[in-house]
């Protein structure tokens, strides 16, 4: 037992231990300051699943020996391009969602392949080079959003050039996965009754009870959860396949892998490509749950929370499992969701939870970086 405790609080597991203690503390405080706990848990569940796929993108990158994918924005850009093109066709519902993903994947394959090729040229400096590759692509694409020849009126500015900063997805594929087979527990204000809705949109409920006569208290985003776990399972299966084993071997010990006839460089390209493809699907899933597409500078820093999440789950810059993704995303997103209202109850002014996020997120990444060392 003692050994187990020691194992759980040392090395790559330390952040998970600290963050879970902190998470429990915030949960207890939420109960003490009387914040409706069910709503918070419901938000946590949604945010966990919507961020999950982006965090999952870290797995192949770390496993193939590239370290966490700081160039996540490359995949995100591919996903966003797919989304705006799908939006242009104006297909509502699942058709739009699948089309967005279908367009994103080939783009991400090309980007990811090139990115992987580049990473093979800069072995040893992957982290900093990929960070700035991501930043550059986002700024370059900002020019791209202005010049993109798309015409849909809900996507472009009525006056002036280019796409909008934020594109509302209500009439497109917004919330498609979230509402699919979802359970919504709705409290009717007048009677205080709890009514259950199955497979209904928020709009349907607000039309039924206009003027906020009913509040959604708890949502189980079944479709979103299924999608996320299915995706986790696919990555898990890939890990068990021959190719997946080879890729992990190349990341674990490149020299040994090379000796046993594995083309390490090829495996690294594979890892980068897979990571980029998953990221491109991840941002489509994220955006449909968020309800908006965010263009221009929004993807700039999106890699950092995803990296922090998987590290909190217990991954290191060399080792990652699906389990780390699930536990880490839940803890990190849960903490962020919970801490906002709790912090606002304690200190009215300012955004304490945002500051907290910066400190936790970068602190966790720094901790992981101190474990990289030992090369010299």
């Amino acid at each position, binding site marked *: 037992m003692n050994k187990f405790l020691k194992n759980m609080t040392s090395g790559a597991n330390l952040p998970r231990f600290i963050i879970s203690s902190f998470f429990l503390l915030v949960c207890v405080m939420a109960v003490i300051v009387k914040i409706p706990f069910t709503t918070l848990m419901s938000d946590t569940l949604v945010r966990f699943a919507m961020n999950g796929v982006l965090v999952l993108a870290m797995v192949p990158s770390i496993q193939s020996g590239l370290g966490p994918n700081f160039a996540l924005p490359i995949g995100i850009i591919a996903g966003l391009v797919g989304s705006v093109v799908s939006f242009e066709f104006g297909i509502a519902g699942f058709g739009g969602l699948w089309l967005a993903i279908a367009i994103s994947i080939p783009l991400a394959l090309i980007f990811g392949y090139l990115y992987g090729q580049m990473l093979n040229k800069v072995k040893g400096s992957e*982290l*900093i*080079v990929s*960070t*700035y590759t991501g930043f550059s692509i986002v700024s370059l694409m900002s020019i791209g959003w202005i010049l993109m020849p798309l015409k849909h009126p809900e996507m472009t500015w009525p006056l002036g050039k280019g796409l909008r900063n934020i594109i509302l997805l209500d009439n497109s594929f917004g919330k498609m996965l979230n509402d699919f087979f979802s359970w919504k527990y709705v409290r009717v204000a007048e009677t205080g009754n709890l009514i259950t809705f199955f497979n209904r949109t928020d709009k349907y409920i607000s039309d039924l009870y206009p003027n906020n006569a009913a509040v959604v208290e708890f949502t189980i985003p079944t479709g979103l959860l299924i999608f996320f776990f299915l995706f986790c399972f696919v990555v898990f299966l890939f890990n068990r396949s021959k190719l997946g084993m080879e890729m992990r071997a190349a990341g674990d010990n490149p020299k040994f892998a090379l000796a046993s006839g594995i083309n390490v460089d090829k495996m690294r390209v594979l890892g980068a490509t897979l990571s980029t493809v998953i990221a491109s699907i991840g941002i489509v899933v994220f955006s449909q749950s968020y309800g908006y597409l965010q263009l221009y500078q929004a993807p700039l820093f999106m890699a950092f929370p995803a990296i922090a999440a998987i590290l909190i789950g217990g991954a290191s810059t060399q080792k990652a499992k699906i389990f780390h993704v699930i536990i880490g995303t839940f803890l990190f997103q849960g903490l962020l969701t919970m801490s906002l209202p709790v912090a606002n109850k304690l200190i009215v002014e300012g955004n304490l939870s945002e*500051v907290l996020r910066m400190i936790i*997120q970068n602190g966790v990444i720094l901790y992981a970086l101190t474990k990289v060392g030992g*090369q*010299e």
Partner: protein
Amino acid sequence: MKPTVTSQLKKFLIKNIVVIVFVVISILAFIASKQSLYFLMSQLLERISRNSFLVLSLLIPVMAGMGLNFSIIIGAMAGQAALIIVTNYQIAFWNGFGGIMLAMLIAVPMAAIFGILTGMLLNKTKGQEMIASMIVGFFANGIYQFIFLFAVGGLFTVRNKDLLLTSGVGLRNSITFTETLKFGLDFGGVTKVPFFNILMVVSVIIILVYLGLFFIKKKLTVKQKSGIVVSAAVLVFSALIMYTNIFPLQIRMLKSLTFPAVSGLFIALLCGFNMIIIKTKLGQDFRAVGQNQHIAAVSGINVNRVRIIAITISTILAAWGQIIFLQEIGVMNTFGSHVQIAQFSVAALLVGGATVSKATNNNAIVGVILFHTLFIVSPFAGKELFGDPQIGEFFRTFVAYGVIGLSLGLYAWKTLFTNKK
């Protein structure tokens, strides 16, 4: 065999390819922007006097083999904290120049402590210093925000209530330095002198120094000779601008350009410091550690200590640099002024032709000139070419990030290549 002119030219081109590319881009962007030379020059001189010190503060960690120090943002935060303290107390005697000096003094211990901590951290992340210094900057920014948004006014009392938000906790988003601190380093603008007068003085000094060398050693290197020629040309040109009317109006207007002399002196002193420190024992240690940590350790150098010293010096200099930067602007964006400092300074240094392992004063100054020329004209160029100034703005951020990414990537590639051999 004597090197031919063409092979020498080729060598020169390869060596300075980055600078040449950016000179061409800057000139093209300037022409496209349709702005006057006077506008460009006046903006550029302001930015040179503001930013050079920060860029120069990056040199020593490069020398010590720690790459580009993205954590100068921590030094910048120390500088801002010092300025906040001085504004808070507004001590009667310490106004203007004195106030800035006091801020610089207060910044030293803070920056030194942060520098030592950063150095210790970077010693644990050897080989990944740059990404670690970047993340530690973000991390420190979180702590900075926590202190100045939630602790100030609550845990610490604040005398100057104008600094605080209406709720009494946390600092305002922007702090305007009173008349007294603004431009304090240049006595509120008193020592802003015509730019070409400064150029004349500097070129006379250079000529005199080289002539002095000539009388002592009886001979000069090619570099020194060309130095005399260039300085003489600058001297004549400046004198013609200041005292005659022979140039067309566009160039004659430049006469009224001014440059803050004391800030200029600070920049020159830092350049001198960077040159002198190489000659000292410490500077030799920096270089030894930068070249090969194993050999340095074997020859009895305490590698970790030397690296900590390098980062600490850089952090202190960055704190001063940020103070110089802010006193010239006169307004501090409490939670934003420091955020981009590292990116832009590093980008400027790289545009000037520096690499991860080699950076000189010249790289820094040339880089500031080129990078900020591009920065000034690109929104106008974007507007003229595409009818949208935003395109120019995105283009310049792309240049900033792109040049860093490309330069780091090329360096890593080259290292990998030489290691394989």
